[in-house]
């Protein structure tokens, strides 16, 4: 079964000064797929995510989102999909400490031009869905790590992104809180048909994905780097 590729990088080469982070990595992610990017610390997996998301411009490569080449675009045009099509969740939530939980969740909608009342209304819809009822007006300092990370997850998904980039989303949480975040992330992404690129070094987190790739020394390991039909077929049968 052929699956539509939503995001793809070919021969990514990226370096930071004299340190080469990616040495010709290629990967394609299918629409609606949850892909785990695994590998040891310093292997280049977060750099790969940043290149796919257009946050970093690689030294050389071709990066495509929805058939449009994005690595050659200027910063303004490259930031458009980051704002409108992509969602992000990072290891430490990175909530804005001065804003309430609901304001944090509403941020992508406000940046996208939504009116404040409408943005907050849509943001609040996510709180019961992620087990966050009653925390709408809390500041990030008044929440546990697991709660803050679920708020960050809501912020990543509130605008209905086509691709969610999650970089070690459970890295700062204990097993139980991490499992809750991953359950919610996988369920919400599948409900919305959101493609997920999930960087993790934890096998139990990667097990929520349809497929994994291993990054070693800036290259993709021997696991197939193109989508297998199994994940999509499974979801289509559900």
């Amino acid at each position, binding site marked *: 079964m052929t699956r539509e590729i939503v995001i793809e990088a070919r021969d990514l080469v990226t370096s930071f000064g004299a340190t080469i982070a990616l040495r010709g990595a290629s990967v394609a992610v299918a629409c609606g797929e949850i892909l785990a990017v695994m590998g*040891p610390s310093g292997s280049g997996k977060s750099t790969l995510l940043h290149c796919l998301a257009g946050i970093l411009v690689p030294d050389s490569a071709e990066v495509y989102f929805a058939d449009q080449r994005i690595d050659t675009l200027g910063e303004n045009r490259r930031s458009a999909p980051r704002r409108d099509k992509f969602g992000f969740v990072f290891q430490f939530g990175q909530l804005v400490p001065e804003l309430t939980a609901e304001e944090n969740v509403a941020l992508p909608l406000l940046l996208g031009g939504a009116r404040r009342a409408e943005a907050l209304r849509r943001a609040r819809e996510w709180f019961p869905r992620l087990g966050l009822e009653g925390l709408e007006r809390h500041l990030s300092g008044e929440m546990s790590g697991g709660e803050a990370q679920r708020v960050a997850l809501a912020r990543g998904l509130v605008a209905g992104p086509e691709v969610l980039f999650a970089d070690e989303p459970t890295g700062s949480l204990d097993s139980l809180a991490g499992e809750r975040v991953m*359950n919610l992330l*996988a*369920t919400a992404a599948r409900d919305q048909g959101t493609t997920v690129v999930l960087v993790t070094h*934890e*096998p*139990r987190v*990667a*097990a*929520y*994905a*349809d497929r*994994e790739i*291993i990054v070693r020394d800036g290259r993709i*390991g*021997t*696991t197939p780097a193109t989508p297998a039909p199994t994940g999509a077929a499974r979801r289509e049968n559900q």
Partner: protein
Amino acid sequence: MTLLGLLEWKPSYGYDLKRDYDGYFGRDKPLQFGQVYATLARLARDGKVAAGESEPGGGPDRKRYFITEAGVAEVDIWLAEPAAPEPHLQPVLFTKVVLALLLRRPAESYLDAQRTAHLQRMRELTALKQEGGMLDTYLADYALFHLEADMRWIDMTAARLDALAEEVRK
């Protein structure tokens, strides 16, 4: 299979085969001589090994055993196939890696295949947890934590393969 792999490494007498096995794999549980000779007889019957002529010595006559082409093919298949992911796999994972290094087979490819098989099983268990009740969750968690421990061992071993190869080939 381990004895067959050791015979691919080098032809051997039963006594030396037991000594090599115990040195690499049987530290906590050495093989009995009876097990060695029974296994060699079965492997010879199945055409996986062949015995040389009896050689008179100080004790009973000794036979040197050689692996056959069919035996090498069997070792090849066994090393390339990941073990079924289940708890308590240490003996088989360890044996495959050490034998692969001894025989200069691609140990890293084996570890990659095992990692893929483990993750596939972890995926199935995770799906079971999402779809099942609490009892399923408890059972799946037990298996998941054991498989995760294997995965950590696989990653550490992959990172140290060069040093391990040097050690086992001494």
